[in-house]
């Protein structure tokens, strides 16, 4: 009998369990339906047990969320930073270009003013090359025989004389600078009218040589071209006396001249195409 009952139970155990558990669930609903606000001990205990875990998980997920938000924010900031850097570079380039144009404009205005001072015909030229050797001082300009440039023509800048044309080709010419060892220019001291010969010393300075010992030369005196020799017009600025060397013997005195033209910054020059002597007013 008992064995038969066990067998029946085994056969219908799922259905029996289903009835028991579902009925219990329904009874739970039924018992709580009118006592919604009542909290059973087991409910209270489960809430209390779950609370720290929930808090931990919520805290962790919030922290993770904040971390992700911060990361996304950083990624956006990085992207924005790259864009802004690019913009800054573009603006810097634009600024540099505008500055360059402003400087070029000022330089061209100076050249224009200077060209008006020269009585004869002049030809503007761009410096396209500088002598790479350390012994010679020459530059290459973008005007040649096609433009009427001839050997021996004077090359000047608004600040002062630069040199003369040494060699020519159809579209370019080589200019020997007055700082070269082989260059010599007849000059006078503007204040005392003392005559001398300005010779290059291979550096960015020149020496005034063969000035009579008795002549009055002082520091800071301006030295200008004398116009003799027919190469340079009279009165073009050469430089200023920086150092005087007068020995107790000999016929002449010497002086070091700081040149007016800044050879390291020269970009444009003028070629005086008039070969006859002219005087700067």
């Amino acid at each position, binding site marked *: 009998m008992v064995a038969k009952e066990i067998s029946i139970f085994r056969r219908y155990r799922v259905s029996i*369990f289903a009835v028991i558990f579902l009925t219990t669930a329904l009874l739970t*609903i039924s018992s709580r339906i009118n006592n919604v606000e009542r909290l059973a001990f087991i409910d209270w205990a489960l809430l209390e047990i779950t609370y720290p875990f929930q808090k931990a998980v919520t805290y962790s*997920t919030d922290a993770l969320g904040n971390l992700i938000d911060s990361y996304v924010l950083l990624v956006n900031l990085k992207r924005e930073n790259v864009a802004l850097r690019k913009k800054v570079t573009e603006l810097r380039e634009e600024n540099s270009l505008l500055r360059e144009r402003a400087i070029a404009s000022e330089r061209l205005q100076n050249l224009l003013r200077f060209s008006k001072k020269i009585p004869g015909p002049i030809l503007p030229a761009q410096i396209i090359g500088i002598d790479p050797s350390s012994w010679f001082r020459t530059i290459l300009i973008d005007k040649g025989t096609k433009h009427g440039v001839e050997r021996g023509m004077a090359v000047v800048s608004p600040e002062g004389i630069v040199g003369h044309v040494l060699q020519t080709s159809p579209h370019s010419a080589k200019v020997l600078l007055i700082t070269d060892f082989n260059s010599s220019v007849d000059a006078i001291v503007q204040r005392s009218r003392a005559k001398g010969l300005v010779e290059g010393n291979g550096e960015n300075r020149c020496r005034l040589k063969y000035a009579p010992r008795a002549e009055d030369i002082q520091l800071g005196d301006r030295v200008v071209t004398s116009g003799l020799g027919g190469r340079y017009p009279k009165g073009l600025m050469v430089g200023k006396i920086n150092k005087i060397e007068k020995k107790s013997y000999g016929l002449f005195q010497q002086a070091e001249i700081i040149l007016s033209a800044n050879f390291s910054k020269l970009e444009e020059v003028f070629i005086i195409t008039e070969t006859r002597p002219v005087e700067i007013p």
Partner: protein
Amino acid sequence: MKKNLSLFGLIFLSLVIQTTIVTNLPHQQAKPDLLLILTVYLGLYSTPLAGAILAFLSGYMMDIFSGSIFGVQTFSKTAIFFLTILIRDRFYIRSPLFQAGTIFLFSIIEGFIIIAILGMVSPIENLLSPFFLFIIPRSLITGLVGPFFIALIKCVPPLSHSGNP
């Protein structure tokens, strides 16, 4: 015993995740019901008595955290457990695709059970509204998440070799 304790631990963990991470997901309507997936798992791999107790407990614990009528989830989860037991030997539901389909179907059934109970307690005017608004999206996402969650459950050492009870 070890297996049942592990399952209880899983129910507890799922409840914590359900009430914290899942509730904070962006789409309110489309949230997976992890405890339903666990109930289906219990139906597939547990003994009727242990599974029924655990399913009952999972529903009960859900009820504690729900603002609804107490016992609704207890009843629905227990019912889903027995429905799973009912079909587990009749249909092949061990592959992920069939698991997804079964979980989707049971999620809809659970929705209907809850609506029915709520309707009995306080009549609902439009039954189709919650069906399309909540039950379908929730069932879809639960069905999609189901096979992955079951695969995860199987990674827990005492449950890794679950076979037919």
